[in-house]
C-alpha cells in the first residue's frame, strides 16, 4: 500500500434545487492508493466536518457497482476515466499525486440538481412505470420450466437487464437522451417469450414517456462508452425497430375501429 499526496479537488457546490452553484476547491493532503474514489470523498467530508463546514452531498449506497446510486462526473467523464466502472468502483490507484480532479453532478435537464452532487433521476422511474414490465400478477404463474428459453436468448436478455439505472448514459449524451436506458429495458423484456404479449404496447409507451422528459438521440454513441455495465448501443436499434412496428401495428388497428 502506498499513498498519494496533494490531491486537489474542484467540486460543484449548490445549496438547493433553485439556487446558483459554484466550484469550490479542496485539498486532500494524503490518501491511500487502496482507497476508493468515494472513500476519498468520505475523507474530505470528515475534514470538512472537523473544520465546522458542511459536508459535500453525493449519492451512493452499495459501493459495489450494482445499485446505480453513485453518479459523478469526474473530469468531465461520467463515472470517471476507467471504462466499464461505476464511480464507487473507481480506486485512487488510477490517479497520481498532485492530480487536480474536477467533480460535478450529472448534467442533464431531466435530472435536476437536488444539492451539490446529488440529482433527481425520478424520470427513469416514470419510464418504467409507463410500460417497463411484464403484466403477471402474483399467483397465476405457470411452472417456471413450462416455456424453455434458449440459452443465447436468455443471455442476450440478461446482457440488457444488467443496466443499473445510474443515468451515466444521459449525463454523457450531448443531447441528454435516455435511449440507452430505455432501450436496455425494452430489450431485456422483448427478447423473452414472456415479454411478447405486451411487446409493442410496451415500446410505444416507454418511448413516448422518455420523449416527454429527455432529449433526442442523434447517434453520438457517448452513452455506450460511459455505461458502467458496457451495455451495447445495439439495443437502441432494436428499440427503434420495434417502435416503428408498433406505430404501424397501431395504425392498422385504428383504421379498423
Amino acid at each position, binding site marked *: 500500500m502506498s499513498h498519494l499526496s496533494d490531491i486537489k479537488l474542484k467540486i460543484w457546490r449548490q445549496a438547493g434545487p433553485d439556487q446558483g452553484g459554484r466550484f469550490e476547491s479542496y485539498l486532500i493532503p494524503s490518501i491511500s492508493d487502496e482507497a476508493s474514489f468515494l472513500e476519498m470523498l468520505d475523507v474530505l467530508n470528515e475534514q470538512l466536518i472537523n473544520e465546522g463546514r458542511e459536508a459535500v452531498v453525493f449519492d451512493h449506497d452499495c459501493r459495489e457497482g450494482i445499485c446505480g446510486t453513485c453518479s459523478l462526473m469526474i473530469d468531465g467523464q461520467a463515472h470517471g476515466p476507467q471504462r466499464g466502472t461505476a464511480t464507487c468502483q473507481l480506486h485512487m490507484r488510477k490517479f497520481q499525486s498532485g492530480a487536480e480532479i474536477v467533480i460535478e453532478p450529472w448534467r442533464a435537464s431531466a435530472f435536476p440538481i437536488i444539492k451539490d452532487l446529488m440529482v433527481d433521476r425520478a424520470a427513469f422511474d416514470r419510464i418504467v412505470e409507463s410500460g417497463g414490465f411484464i403484466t403477471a400478477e402474483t399467483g397465476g404463474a405457470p411452472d417456471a420450466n413450462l416455456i424453455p428459453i434458449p440459452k443465447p436468448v436468455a443471455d442476450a436478455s440478461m446482457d440488457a437487464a444488467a443496466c443499473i439505472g445510474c443515468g451515466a448514459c444521459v449525463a454523457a449524451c450531448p443531447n441528454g437522451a435516455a435511449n440507452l436506458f430505455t432501450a436496455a429495458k425494452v430489450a431485456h423484456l422483448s427478447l423473452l417469450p*414472456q415479454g411478447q404479449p405486451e411487446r409493442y404496447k410496451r415500446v410505444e409507451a416507454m418511448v413516448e414517456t422518455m420523449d416527454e422528459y429527455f432529449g433526442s438521440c442523434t447517434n453520438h454513441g457517448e452513452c455506450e462508452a460511459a455505461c458502467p455495465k458496457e451495455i451495447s448501443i445495439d439495443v437502441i436499434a432494436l428499440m427503434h425497430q420495434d417502435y416503428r412496428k408498433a406505430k404501424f401495428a397501431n395504425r392498422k388497428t385504428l383504421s379498423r375501429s
Partner: protein
Amino acid sequence: MSTTTIAGLPGSEKLQSKAPNVAVPEMWETFKSDMKLVNPNNKRKFKIIVVGTGLAGASAAATLAELGYQVDAFTFHDSPRRAHSIAAQGGINAAKNYKGDGDSIHRLFYDTIKGGDFRARESNVHRLAEVSVDIIDQMVAQGVPFAREYGGLLDNRSFGGAQVSRTFYARGQTGQQLLIGAYQQMARQIGLGNVRLWNRTELVDTVTVDGRCAGIVTRDLMTGDIVSHAAHAVVLCTGGYGNVFFLSTNAMACNVTAAWRAHRRGAYFANPCYTQIHPTCIPQADDTQSKLTLMSESLRNDGRVWVPKAVGDERAPADIPEDERDYYLERLYPSFGNLAPRDISSRAAKRAVDSGRGVGPLKNGVYLDFSAAIGRLGKDVVEERYGNLFEMYERIAGEDPYSTPMRIYPASHYTMGGLWVDYELMTSIPGLYAAGEANFSDHGANRLGASALMQGLSDGYFVLPYTIGNYLAPLLNKPVPGVDHPEFKAAEAAARQRYQGYLDVKGTRSPDFFHRELGKIIWDYCGMERTEQGLEKALSELPALYEEFQKDLRVTGDGASTNQTLEKAGRVDDFFQLGMLMCRDALERKESCGGHFRAEYQDDEGEAKRDDENFAHVAAWEWTGDPMQSIRNVEPLDFTTVHLATRSYK
C-alpha cells in the same frame, strides 16, 4: 403446537406464534382455509403502508395493490430499484427438484431448521419451503432472466452448505434481477395509481393508538419536513442491521432505524445477537475502508481455501508447494470441504489468521484458489461461471484471480435477529407487520446461503397478502385514527426535537467517527467469537461511548435541506442502543448456536455446543426506555417434525 407459553416468565403470554394447531406440514393450508377474507370490493377501503421497497417491500406492495388495497410505499432511496437487495449475488433457493437429486419441500425445510441450528420456528420455516417453488414461477413470469441450460430449461447450482442443487441464479446478479422484477411489478401499480410512492422519505417513528398501529411519521430527506401518515396496517420491510459493525457487506445506507423506532414503541426485538459473518469477503485494505465487499459464496463451489502451513510464511502463493499448504476446510470437514456452512467456515478462517498464518499485506486474509478449477474445467468455464466476480475482485484488490489466488476474510453480512413476529408476520404491536430481513422468523441462529432472497419474496408475495386480510377483515367500515390524532402530533413533535437535538449538540466529532468506534467494540466483543468477559467489557464501554456521542456529536449544515450528516446521526444513535441490546442478548444466551459462538461453550474440537435444555427458545426483548434495562421474554421452540440433533458437518 408452537403456541406454548411458560408461566412465570414475564411477557411470554404476548409471544404466541398463533400457528394453527395441526401438524407442521398442514399448517399453511389450514391457515389459508380458515383465515378471514376481505371481499375484493372492500379492499380499496383499506390503506396499507409498506415501508421499504427491497425484495420484501416491493413484492408486498405490488401484490397488495393487485389485490385492490390502497398502498403507500416508502423508501429513503431515490428509487425503489436501489434497495440493498440489489447487491445479492449468489442466488435464490427453491425446492423445485428440477435436478431430480432428491430435493423436496421437506428437505429444504429440514436443511433450513438444521442450518439455523434449531433456533427457528418450525411452522414458519415449513411455510417458507412450501412457497419457495411459487417464487421461481412468479419471477420467471415477471421476466427475470435466470441462467439456463442449452436445452432452455432453468439451470441450478448447489450453494453454501447444501447437498442438492436447488439454487437458481442470474449470473452473479441474482439480487439485482429479482429486485428489478419486483420493482417493475410495483412500478406497474404505481403507473396505475394503486401504489403511491414516497421516495427519499425516511420513517422516523411508528404511531400506536389504542393498542393498534395507526401509522407512521416520516422525514422528507430533501426538505426535512416531518409528516404523519395514517393507515389500517403498516408493514416494515426495512432490511437488516449488519451495519452496526460499521464495516460490513451491507450497502452504506442499511440501518436499524425503522425496526428500532418500532421497538421503542413496543415491538419486541428478537435474538439481536444472531448475526451472520460471511466467510468470503475481500479483507480490509486500509483505514479509510468504508465497507467490505462480498465475493459470492458460489465461488467456494470451485475455489479451494488454504493458508500456508508455516506461521509467517512470506512467500508468494505460487511459490508455496502443495504439501506446505493447509487446505483446512477440506482437512477439518471432509464431507463438506470448502462448502462448509458460513459460521463454520468463518470461524475456521479466523483461527487460521489468529494463528499467524494469515496472507496478504496486512496478514488478514486466507486464500481462495481457483488454479485447480482452471486446470480441470478450463479458463473459459471458470470465466463463464464467475467472470463478473473476478472482474470485481480485480477492480477492488488490484490483483488478477485467474493467475493469483483471491484473498478473503469473514465480514458481517446478514442479521438473523430482528423484530419478533408471529406466524402471520405481525409484530407484538397489532397491525404492525415485519417482513424480509427486518423480522427474525425463518433463519434461526444461522441463515443458509440463497435463503434470504427466498424469504423476502416469500413474505412479500405469498404470506403477507394472505395474513394481512385476516387482521383487516374485522376492521371493515370501522373508523381509524387520522393524522390529527394527538398521538401523531406528539410523535411529530418528538421527531422534530430529535433531529434539531442532533444539530444543537455542536460538539467536535462526526457521526461517522462514533459509528467506527461503535463498530470496533461490537466486532471485537460481539463478532465471530464472544465471551462473557468480552461482552461485559463491551457493556461497560458502550454506555460511555454513547454518552460521548450525545455530548460531543457534531452535525454541520441545517435540517431544512438534504443533510446526510444529520441522517447518519439518527441512524448511529439507534445503532448504539441496538449494540447494547445485542451484547446483552449474547451475554444471556449461555450456549453456542449458529452465528452466536460463545467461546465458553465448545467441545474439545472447537465446535459449537448448544444447550437445548435451557436455550431452545427465542429471546424477545421488550423496551423499557433504557437499552441496558430491556426485559428478556422467551418464546419456547417446539420441535415436533425435526428431531433436535447436533449439527455436524464433518
